[in-house]
């Protein structure tokens, strides 16, 4: 337990899950050495892949009252997206609607503990905030053929009229699952389970082969 900071506050326990000292945090695709592939691999192609690794992901669950909503807005800097399948993205924080009482909050890796601590200090009422950073990773996929690649992987309708920028869905993805958010016309964010990351990386390589896959560091 010497590697983690544990602070008890009024009976609540917040743990800094980031490794410190001699321990180096490794993403689930560490073994793939994406940095080398990005340098040596193809630089042209229809699908671009980037692992946005070691981010801070927090799951917020609550049926927010008006008071909680304003507190959460002041804590996050943005209002919770209350409409189904919507999201908010800023430079500092992304919030994804997951279900009527669940949101996914994405911040920089080193900010998760601080945000969690501030929630525990400030937010009142019935809620749960869980750090899921260690169990998930984020793939950013983009490029002119990214929709073609995704069509092989998920049954969700990706046409811009059905899936506009900012929309977020949790769905089946290549027999696994993913939370898909459209960041731009040809750019998507996939939040996937850590244990499926290697499988999905292999899948995406295979599904992108005919369009050419470019790995971005």
């Amino acid at each position, binding site marked *: 337990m010497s590697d983690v900071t544990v602070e008890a506050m009024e009976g609540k326990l917040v743990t800094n899950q980031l490794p410190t000292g001699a321990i180096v945090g490794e993403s689930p695709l560490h073994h793939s050495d994406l940095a080398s592939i990005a340098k040596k691999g193809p630089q042209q192609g229809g699908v671009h892949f980037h692992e946005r690794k070691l981010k801070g992901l927090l799951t917020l669950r609550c049926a927010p009252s008006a008071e909680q909503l304003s507190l959460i807005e002041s804590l996050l800097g943005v209002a919770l997206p209350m409409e*189904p*399948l919507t999201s908010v993205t800023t430079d500092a924080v992304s919030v994804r609607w997951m*279900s009527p009482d*669940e949101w996914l909050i994405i911040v920089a890796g080193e900010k998760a503990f601080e945000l969690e601590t501030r929630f525990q200090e400030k937010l009142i009422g019935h809620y749960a905030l869980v750090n899921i950073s260690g169990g998930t990773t984020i793939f950013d996929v983009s490029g002119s053929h990214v929709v073609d690649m995704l069509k092989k992987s998920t*049954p969700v309708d990706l046409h811009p009229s059905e899936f506009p920028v900012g929309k977020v869905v*949790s769905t*089946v993805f290549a027999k696994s*699952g993913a939370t898909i958010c459209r960041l731009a016309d040809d750019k998507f964010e996939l939040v996937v389970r850590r244990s499926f990351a290697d499988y999905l990386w292999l899948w995406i390589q295979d599904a992108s082969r005919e369009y050419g896959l470019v790995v971005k560091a």
Partner: protein
Amino acid sequence: MFHIYCPHCCEYREEEEFHAAGQSHIARPLDPDACTDKEWGEFMYFRANPRGIHHELWVHAAGCRKYFNITRDTQTYEIKEVYKVGEKPTVVANAIQSK
């Protein structure tokens, strides 16, 4: 394949995102200790298997992970209605209307 409307996500999704969770509207006996073995056994194990209108509980397993009800015709597989847990169905079969 079903094309199922999720009342929480407010849109149609493919069936593979969902799981059926059996018959809906099964009331748990308020005092299990006071049940006879027959009453408890019927609550635990016996389910309706109608030909026609059937109310089923489904879960949007790969999506919002919420449960909701579907009224389905077991003969034609047609989904007549989707409604949230706690709401009453508007499409009901005559045979089970008395329940």
